[in-house]
C-alpha cells in the first residue's frame, strides 16, 4: 500500500531537483560562458506487489532526477571591445592552473593580466600554457588570432590552446565557471574545430523562455504528485475506517 505513497513522494523530490537546476540557470543568466544544467529523469526499480492481489505484478517505486551534464549549445557571442576578452566558438575550453596546482577548464574567456604580465582568468588563475606580456606592452597592443596565436606588433608571444574531453557531461563543476577533469570525463585533448574571437565573450547559454516553460511544467508535476499523496492518504483513511 505504502509503495504508491513513496512513489508519489519521489516524484515531488525529483521535481525539486529540477527546480534547483532551473533556479541556478536563471541566476546565471548573465554569467559569461555559463552552460545550463541538464536534468534527466529515470524510473526506479520495480518490485512485486507483495499483497495477495497481484503478487505476480511488479509496480514501480517512482522516479529520480539527476543532473546529467551541461548543455553544450553555443552561447551568443557578445562584443565587448576589451582586447583581452576571447569568446570560444565550438566545442572547447580554456585551461587554467589554479592556486592548488590543479587544472581547471572554463568557457569564460574574460582574461586579465596579473602583476607578472601573465594572462589569467578572472580569478587570477594563469592560462595554460602561460603567456607573458613583455614590459611596456599594453593589453590594447595584443592581438589574439582565431587559432589562439597571441602577438604584439608582429611578435609572437605564445598560443592559447583550447582543449576538450571525451565526455564533457562528466566534468565536475567547481564554481567560478571552472570545471575539473574526472576519471569519468577522460583526459584532456586538443579541441577540434574550436576557434577564438578577440574582443568578445560567450554569453550564458541559458534560454530564459525555455527555463520559464520548464518551471511551469515542473510546478504542475509537483502539484499533481502532491495530489497523488493525498489520494493515497485518503485510501489509508478508508482502510482504517473498516473497523468502526
Amino acid at each position, binding site marked *: 500500500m505504502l509503495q*504508491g505513497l513513496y*512513489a508519489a513522494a519521489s*516524484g515531488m523530490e525529483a521535481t525539486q531537483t529540477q527546480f534547483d537546476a532551473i533556479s541556478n540557470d536563471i541566476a546565471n543568466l548573465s554569467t559569461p560562458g555559463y552552460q545550463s544544467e*541538464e536534468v534527466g529523469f*529515470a524510473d526506479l526499480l520495480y518490485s512485486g*506487489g507483495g499483497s495477495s492481489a*497481484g503478487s505476480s505484478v511488479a509496480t514501480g517505486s517512482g522516479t529520480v532526477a539527476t543532473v546529467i551534464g551541461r548543455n553544450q549549445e553555443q552561447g551568443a557571442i557578445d562584443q565587448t571591445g576589451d582586447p583581452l576578452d576571447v569568446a570560444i566558438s565550438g566545442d572547447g575550453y580554456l585551461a587554467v592552473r589554479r592556486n592548488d596546482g590543479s587544472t581547471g577548464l572554463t568557457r569564460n574567456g574574460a582574461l586579465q593580466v596579473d602583476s607578472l604580465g601573465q594572462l589569467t582568468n578572472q580569478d587570477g588563475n594563469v592560462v595554460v600554457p602561460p603567456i607573458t606580456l613583455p614590459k611596456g606592452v599594453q593589453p590594447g597592443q595584443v592581438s589574439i588570432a582565431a587559432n589562439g596565436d597571441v602577438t604584439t606588433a608582429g611578435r609572437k608571444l605564445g598560443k592559447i590552446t583550447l582543449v576538450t574531453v571525451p565526455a564533457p557531461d562528466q566534468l565536475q563543476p567547481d564554481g567560478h565557471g571552472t570545471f575539473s577533469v574526472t576519471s*569519468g570525463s577522460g583526459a584532456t585533448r586538443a579541441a*577540434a574545430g574550436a576557434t577564438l574571437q578577440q574582443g568578445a565573450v560567450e554569453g550564458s547559454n541559458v534560454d530564459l523562455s525555455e527555463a520559464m516553460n520548464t518551471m511551469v511544467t515542473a510546478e504542475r508535476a509537483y502539484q499533481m504528485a502532491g495530489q497523488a499523496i493525498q489520494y493515497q492518504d485518503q485510501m489509508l483513511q*478508508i482502510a482504517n475506517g473498516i473497523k468502526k
Partner: protein
Amino acid sequence: MDSGLYIAASGMLAEQVRQNQLSNDLANSSTPGYKPQEGQQQSFGALLLANTSTGQTVGTIDTGVTVGKLVTDTTQAPLQSTGQPLDFAIGGQGYFAVRTAAGVSYTRDGQFSSNAAGQLTDAQGDPVLSQAGAPILVSAKGTVSASALGVFNANNVAQKGGTLLSGTAAGRGTGVVHQGELEQSGVDPIQTMTDMIASLRAYQAGQSALQSIDQTMQEDATSVPSLGGS
C-alpha cells in the same frame, strides 16, 4: 456469507495495486521515453453452488478480483525538440539497445551522454549499441550521426527501472531515429489523475460493502440467538 467479505477485500487489494501503479506513472510524467503501465484485472475462479439438502445446483458465484498482470502501453509519445546533439528519439516502432552488466536492455529514452572512452552511453553509463551490436563512438566534435544508432524490436517488454526495459530480441525495428529530440513520457497526467479518483472511489465502495456485510453478520450474531431465547 463470509465469502462476500473476502470478495470485497480482494477488490480493495486490487485497487491498492492500481493506485501504486498510477502513482508510479504520475511520478514519471517527466521521464523521457517512459511507457505507462496498464493493470489488467481478472476474476478468480468461479465456485459452483449447490443446494446442500437436495444437491441441486444453484449456479456459480465469482470470488473476487485480482490484478493479473501489468501491461506496458507502448504507444508512441510526442517528440520534443531539445537541440542537444546527443539527444535521440525514435519515431515509430523499435527501441535503442544498451549493454548493461546484466546483458542487453532496451529503452526509448534517448537522453544520451558520452564516457571517458568516447563512447555514446545512457545516463547510467551503459554503452548504446549500433545495429551491428557494437558500441558507438562520439566524434571529436561531440556528435553522433543518427544513422549510427541501432533500432531493435523486442518482445515481452517490461520495465526494470532506469528507463530500461527487459525483453527478447526480435530483429530490426522500423522506427526512424531523430537527432536533437526526445520522446516525451507517455503518461497522460489528466487521465492518470482521473483514474486515481475513480480507483479511490472504487476502494471506498469496497470498504462500504465490507462494512455492510460486517453489519449483517453482527445482526446474525446478536439478534438471531435473542430471537430463539424469547
